């Protein structure tokens, strides 16, 4: 390693990790230690906040499960709709394709929080509130622009001759997609899936307005609800523990899939 960079790298890591490290320390501190700096070092630590989270009603893992269900389903729906659509887009005449690409990029830029009221009306009209499966529908719609941008440019990157050859072999459209094109798109599909999953996992305003039942809340809403419960007596110890537990799945995801995340983010922005 080049020694010249060590201070800068340390600075970068401190900046990124210190706030989370403070959450970790807080989550392991006793309620007294959180408010009193004079308690001796060895008497400051406890696991009680984690036990509280497990014993609360609903238990904390329930929120993780809810988020996992919505995010998993969103990813599935988005991919099922976006893969054929991206194929269709890539096969359109140049000008129409360009137009649709601009529209999709515009939708991807859109600060979607502004849509919440109309979506909430839809939820009320069709009784879709408090339903995790229904929530995946608007999520898939909101994630669609990004998925289309990523997958369309991936389809465009495949050589035309490949598909023509498969067609000459007598493969139907479905067979061509299933056996030739989609397997070649596996890397782009993986990136797309992870980014869509992250979007759904972190989404807040729509979940906030669609869900009200305690046992159905997704992680971001459950976290915010603790904040709203009382400004002056937020249970910071338990909250910090929740932050730590809530971060672990993401920490793993980012560490394992960072290559896909990075390529997805950069391709989405550049080719789109």
């Amino acid at each position, binding site marked *: 390693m080049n020694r010249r960079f060590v201070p800068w790298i340390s600075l970068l890591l401190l900046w990124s990790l210190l706030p*989370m490290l403070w959450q970790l320390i807080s989550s392991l501190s006793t309620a007294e230690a959180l408010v009193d700096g004079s308690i001796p070092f060895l008497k400051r630590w406890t696991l009680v906040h984690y036990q509280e989270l497990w014993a609360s009603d609903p238990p904390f893992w329930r929120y993780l499960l809810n988020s996992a269900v919505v995010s998993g389903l969103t990813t599935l729906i988005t991919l099922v709709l976006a893969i*054929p*659509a991206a194929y269709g887009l890539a096969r359109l005449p140049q000008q129409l394709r360009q137009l649709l690409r601009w529209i999709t990029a515009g939708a991807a*830029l859109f600060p979607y929080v502004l849509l919440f009221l109309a979506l909430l009306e839809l939820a009320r009209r069709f009784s879709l509130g408090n339903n995790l499966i229904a929530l995946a529908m*608007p999520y*898939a719609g909101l994630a669609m622009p990004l998925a289309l941008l990523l997958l369309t*440019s991936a389809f465009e990157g495949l050589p035309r001759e490949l598909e023509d050859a498969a067609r000459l072999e007598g493969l139907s459209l479905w067979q061509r997609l299933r056996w030739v094109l989609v397997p070649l798109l596996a890397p782009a599909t993986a990136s797309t899936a992870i980014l869509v999953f992250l979007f759904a996992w972190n989404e807040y305003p729509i979940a906030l307005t669609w869900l009200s039942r305690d046992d159905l809340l997704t992680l971001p809403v459950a976290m915010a609800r603790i904040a709203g419960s009382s400004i002056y007596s937020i249970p910071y110890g338990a909250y*910090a523990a929740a932050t730590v537990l809530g971060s672990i799945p993401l920490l793993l995801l980012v560490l394992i899939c960072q290559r896909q995340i990075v390529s997805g983010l950069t391709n989405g*922005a*550049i080719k789109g």
Partner: protein
Amino acid sequence: MTVLLLLPALLLMGLVFVWPMLRYGWLSFHADSVLTGLNPVANGGANWIRLLDDQRFWQDTLQTTRFAGVSVGLEMVLALAIALLLDQRWRGRGVVRALALLPWALPTTMMALGWRWIFNTPYGPLERLAEVVGLGPLNLLSTPASTWLVTVLADVWKTTPFIALLLLAGLQTIPEDLYSAFRLEGGRPNQALMSITLPLLMPYVLIALLFRGAQAFGVFDLIQVLTGGGPAGSTESVALYAYLNAMRFLDFGYSATVMLAGFLLLTLAVLVLAMLLRLGGLIRPVQS
């Protein structure tokens, strides 16, 4: 056949993106609140006239624009530094890149409350430090100026990694030969930054600027959880104001007006910015 493949995805997108805008357009010419028994009643342009005269809306627009401008500006500078660092060759770069990306991956609401704890008076680490040094109490989250700074900091902390990655991708497209040629011509390394790196990186900077600018203008999660718009409305954003109109004041007609107005102002800002950049010759065709 192609149309059939496209249709489901486009329909869903239309339902989620286009329908709300049409609905807001319609709602913005109706009174739909507790006063009308939550039924829409046409009221001409009353919502729009109210909006033009609504101090709080224009104050929020100003605040949101300022927040977006300063946050994105800071993010851009920091991200460039990080991207330059990650573009160098050193061992462990992959792990550091993943760890630096972590703030971006966490839910905003989760860290928003984390920041409230960190800047808490009197128990947060900063307050304790200030007390030891003899500066305290700082009351960081009860004075408008410092609360605003905290919101900017939280946004910069979360989204800088995202921009850094975009810029890093841009850096990696610049051929090494350009730098060697520059050195052969007798250019100094720090001049290379100004005359090669930055000009070639410009398209990426603009994409990041556009994307982040629009997102920052729609800031909601962070403000709602970290400050609730306070103290005294000094950090309230347009999106939060629209949310409060609908969910707290139960005035759906006006909420729709606020959101549509926010959308129109944002579109206008993007168009004007794009035009200025084109006039300034900064936008060049990006190869796709």
